[in-house]
């Protein structure tokens, strides 16, 4: 609540200074945009802290798990496209070992290359599982899932990505929860990236994922708005049929389908027990391609959410609407961040102000919010056993992803279709810096602004120049993490406890 008070105090101060500022029309416009960008960033920060607040206030209750006396049929679907044989085989082997008698494993092979098709067939034969291929390509992952599901009669459908390894008790627990609540459509579980020691990118991606799975998902589950994350989940087949199968109109079919399920009144649950190990993207190229897809898909869902909210506001409960709005607009916050990064540069190089506030007032109104919010964030993650130094790496990677998010949201907003690209997990190591031109450009622009700013400060020792210079230096340092991430993790072998035999 204190964070909320600090946010309000800061915004009142900002509004007062902005309205009384003497400035040119251009500066006025920039000032208003700056104010809007800050408000948008804080809207999302507020969403996160509200989630933490709800979690601390609510009594955590575990879902009812009873020993199963009967075992309803379960179809385990594993969509795969050009997946390395070893990765796919590990997934099939771990599914094969799920301690649940009534299960059928399906490999949904979408490969177009003969070598991968032959490998999928070989694995299917080895583990006695079904191989499904479609004849007409449509709707990317959602398309092949729908094509397969329409022929199934199993009560439950489980979906794992081709690089996910569940532990043996996964089904006995999740199916038990579903059997105890007939209105429950879907259970989502978290995952660990088990390759986090193989690259800095995989490590940081795992930390970002931890922030999402530890607090955000739990809060969404309390609000009855837990969304499907596309893998490691169990869904009741009849509920999927009720909403016409997986949504094929976006690249984040999981999120869009959850929205449909909630609109139809079905319940979803987040079961926060890690029972699946996955593979994270191991270099920046693979990571950015994954993030671009998520940004595109989320913004496409935002359009659906806004349209539905406008037409039938009573279709969901207010808290569900809130969660959907926060989540689907999440990636668009990148535009606000990018604007906030460029404003100090504009001031230092072109002398165009966009932030109107006395430095002392700024210090006393903004710093309390900044310090408290960071403290709550890091303390919250520490409470779940994630050290600040680890979480910081996730934040650095988020910062580097801003240009990717901007591109993704723009493509999603205008409905520009892109071929569904499967995140590559096997590429470790450096990416050409040509590929990273947006991040490198941002780094170079900030460096130039620092040089110019130091020169300017030598002649004009005003607090405004100093504050802007501090922000540019901060952004420059964040941008410099590109060199840390675009490399292999040093000494990863030392961390390994076993040889992966």
């Amino acid at each position, binding site marked *: 609540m204190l964070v909320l008070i600090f946010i309000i105090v800061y915004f009142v101060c900002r509004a007062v200074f902005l309205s009384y500022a003497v400035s040119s029309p251009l500066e006025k416009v920039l000032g208003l945009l700056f104010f809007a960008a800050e408000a948008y960033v804080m809207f999302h920060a507020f969403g996160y802290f509200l989630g933490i607040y709800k979690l601390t206030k609510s009594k955590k209750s575990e879902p009812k798990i009873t020993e199963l006396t009967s075992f309803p049929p379960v179809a385990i679907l594993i969509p795969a496209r050009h997946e390395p044989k070893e990765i796919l085989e590990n997934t099939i*082997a771990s599914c094969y070992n799920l301690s649940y008698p009534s299960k059928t494993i399906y490999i949904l092979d979408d490969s177009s290359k003969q070598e991968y098709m032959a490998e999928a067939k070989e694995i299917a034969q080895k583990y006695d599982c079904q191989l499904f291929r479609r004849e007409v390509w449509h709707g990317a992952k959602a398309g092949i899932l729908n094509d397969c599901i329409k022929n199934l009669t199993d009560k439950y459908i489980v979906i794992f990505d081709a690089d996910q390894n569940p532990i043996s008790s996964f089904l006995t627990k999740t199916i038990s929860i579903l059997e105890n609540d007939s209105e429950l459509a879907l259970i989502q579980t978290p995952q660990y990236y*088990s390759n986090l020691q193989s690259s800095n990118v995989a490590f940081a991606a795992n930390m970002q994922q931890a922030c999402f799975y530890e607090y955000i998902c739990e809060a969404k589950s309390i609000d009855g708005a837990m969304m499907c994350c596309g893998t490691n989940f169990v869904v009741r087949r009849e509920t999927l049929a009720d909403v016409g199968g997986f949504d094929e109109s976006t690249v984040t079919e999981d999120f869009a389908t959850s929205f449909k399920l909630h609109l139809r009144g079905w319940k979803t649950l987040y079961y926060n027990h890690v029972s699946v190990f996955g593979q994270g993207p191991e270099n920046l190229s693979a990571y950015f391609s994954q993030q671009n897809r998520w940004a595109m898909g989320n913004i496409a869902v935002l359009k659906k959410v806004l349209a539905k909210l406008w037409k039938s506001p009573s279709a969901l409960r207010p808290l569900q609407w809130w969660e959907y709005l926060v989540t689907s607009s999440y990636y668009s916050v990148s535009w606000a961040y990018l604007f906030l990064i460029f404003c100090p540069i504009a001031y230092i190089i072109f002398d165009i102000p966009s932030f109107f506030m006395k430095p002392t007032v700024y210090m006393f109104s903004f710093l309390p919010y900044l310090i408290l919010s960071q403290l709550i964030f890091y303390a919250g993650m520490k409470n779940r056993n*994630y050290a600040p130094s680890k979480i910081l790496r996730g934040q650095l990677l988020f910062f580097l992803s801003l240009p990717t998010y901007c591109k993704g949201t723009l493509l999603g907003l205008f409905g520009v279709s892109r071929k569904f690209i499967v995140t590559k997990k096997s590429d470790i190591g450096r990416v050409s810096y040509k590929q990273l031109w947006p991040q490198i450009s941002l780094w170079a622009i900030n460096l130039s602004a620092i040089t110019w700013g130091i020169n300017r400060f030598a002649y004009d020792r005003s607090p405004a120049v100093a504050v802007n210079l501090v922000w540019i230096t901060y952004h420059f340092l964040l941008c410099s993490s590109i060199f840390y991430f675009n490399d292999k993790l040093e000494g990863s072998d030392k961390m390994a406890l*076993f040889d992966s*035999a």
Partner: protein
Amino acid sequence: MITKEELLSLMETASKAEGTTMPLYTKHINSTLFLSRFDEEEKERIQKILLRLNSESTDHAKIFKQLINQIKNGSADVY
């Protein structure tokens, strides 16, 4: 009672499970321990126990394979 064919099929399944999943779960334990709350001393102790389990499982898999071969080559058809 169980026929030789049925017994061999069950044993092959069990052998396949042990052979594939032990190394797989062992690999995942690396990151689990890395992110765990255990202190270094405890981690080391767990690591030792798991290493022993891993090696015993490898030995067990070998013995199991031998047993399968023995049954395959044996003359008994019902067990």
